């Protein structure tokens, strides 16, 4: 397939701008992160002694790290599949003909385009304990007598962050799944219907096998997004109450830029990178066929 192109020298003048940016700002920084993680770097102290792997030992020994890690894994493992399942429903709906579909398609992407830090604020107003919309609504409907402190209760706060996160993620995954759904041969549905398959049966035997590649890609993508979530937490809960909604990225930021412990921050960063590396290798096995299929 590649033979229709002539073999040329490495096209450095085409690639130079992108390569230089990627090398200066990704590969070099990552090396730099590994390097700084071996030193004790506290911004308030003038000296930067070499400490070897002590930063890692300290980080791993910290209960806050384990809390953030557990929070993050639970967060990613719960939100990713829910997002994919809801998105499948939304994608299916958007491909169905009905009056007003155009309007729905126009607005359904909105949550995705909203900056994460702002999405946190939108949901802050809904879940707020003193003047939140949800509290006002529940009160007006007579369901509650006193306002619920959604963001002050560790369990409820976790649920709130997940709801808000899923809200921001549905549009993009829906678009991915819509693209996949349009590639399924319509005759398969007709054949299934002739064979007497009900709606649920058709979903299991035609739809899901037809888009499973894309569903897996979406799932892994969402897992990574979940593991690296940051801005929403920052503006919705600030990691609280206590550390109940502190996710790894937020924890790294806290350690580096509020505790000003750059050594620990770098060590944490390297650990999180390793964690995602496991996912990335999985992705690499899945993505190439997908791209081939689309070509």
């Amino acid at each position, binding site marked *: 397939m590649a033979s229709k192109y002539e073999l040329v020298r490495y096209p450095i003048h085409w690639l130079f701008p992108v390569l230089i*940016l990627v090398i200066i700002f990704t590969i070099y920084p990552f090396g730099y992160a590994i390097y700084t993680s071996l030193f004790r770097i506290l911004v308030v102290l003038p000296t930067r002694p070499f400490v070897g792997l002590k930063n890692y030992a300290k980080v791993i020994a910290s209960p806050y790290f384990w809390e953030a890690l557990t929070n993050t894994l639970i967060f990613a493992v719960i939100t990713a599949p829910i997002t994919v399942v809801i998105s499948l429903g939304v994608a299916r709906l958007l491909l169905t003909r009905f009056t007003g579909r155009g309007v729905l398609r*126009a607005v359904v992407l909105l949550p*995705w385009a909203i900056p*994460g830090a*702002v999405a*946190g604020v939108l949901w802050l107003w809904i879940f707020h304990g003193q003047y939140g919309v949800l509290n006002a609504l529940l009160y007006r409907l007579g369901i509650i007598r006193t306002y619920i402190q959604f963001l002050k209760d560790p369990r409820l706060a976790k649920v709130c962050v997940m709801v808000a996160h899923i809200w921001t993620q549905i549009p993009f995954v829906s678009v991915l799944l819509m693209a996949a759904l349009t590639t399924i041969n319509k005759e398969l549905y007709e054949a299934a219907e002739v064979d007497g398959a009900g709606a649920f049966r058709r979903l299991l035997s035609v739809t899901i096998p037809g888009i499973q590649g894309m569903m897996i890609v979406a799932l892994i993508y969402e897992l990574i997004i979940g593991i690296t979530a940051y*801005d929403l937490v920052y503006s919705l809960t600030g990691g609280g109450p206590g550390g109940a909604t502190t996710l790894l990225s937020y924890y790294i930021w806290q350690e580096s830029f509020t505790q000003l412990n750059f050594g620990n921050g770098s060590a944490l960063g390297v650990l999180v990178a390793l964690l995602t590396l496991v996912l990335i290798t999985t992705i690499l096995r899945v993505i190439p066929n997908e791209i081939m299929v689309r070509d």
Partner: protein
Amino acid sequence: MAKRIFIYIAALVVFLFAVGPLALTLLGSVIPAASLLSVPPVWFDRKPTLAYYDYIFTGKVPVAYELRGAERGMITQEVRQVPRGLRNSSIIAVAVMAINVVFGSMAAYSFARMRFRGKSVTFSGIVMCRLLPAAALAVPFYLIIQGLGLLDTRLALILVHSILTLPFTVLILTLFFRSIPLEIEEAARIDGADPWRTFWRITLPLSASSMVATGLFAFMLSYSEFLYSNILGGGERTRTLPVIMAALSTNTDVAWPMFMAAVFITLIPTVVLVIVVWNFVVEGIIFGGSKY
């Protein structure tokens, strides 16, 4: 019939879920603070007001705040940063968009149309870079930008946002360039055009729509980026809107409707982009303009 009803109910739920939080923000920004904070909630006893928007843009303190001590709401100078934030965010995002379209398309073209040693390594290297968690690089980015003397400048944010968006741009444009029939370019070659000329005169004009798409995508990512904007551009001069919003969300001195007004101003560019422009582009990409 039952199926129809189910579809409309589902459509209504999706609509409310997508638009609800935004509509509430708009609503919250015009209700006077005293009504909004009442318990039990009575939101509609006072006339809606645009005073909060007025304050953000002109600094004119809402009348209610000067009248009675008891109903005096909280007010903060911090929301006055919004107009400047809007300017910062837009300048940065437009620059990032330009860098993406120009440099990203050059790289993508070489991946789509040339054969060379190290191609797949370079390509996956560029795309994989984005899979490194952003927070993992927070400290080194800070130290590098500090070393370059670029802390608290828009240039730093333009550079960093470009790194974050270029891998996507390269990936999408490579796939797109590959889908353009090779024969068109070959015709140009036979007429004597070199690769550079073929790229500028033939390929680029043909792929205008996907360039617009990826450009807007880069704009949106840059406009939304928070982590690095927060770390690298802490000062008032370079603060972008997400940074201001996050700061306001932890600022207890801000009147809630005032905050909602600030949020809504932040959302206007994204709403316009999504509804007016992006949807056409997305539909074009997914469905290739075909009706189904």
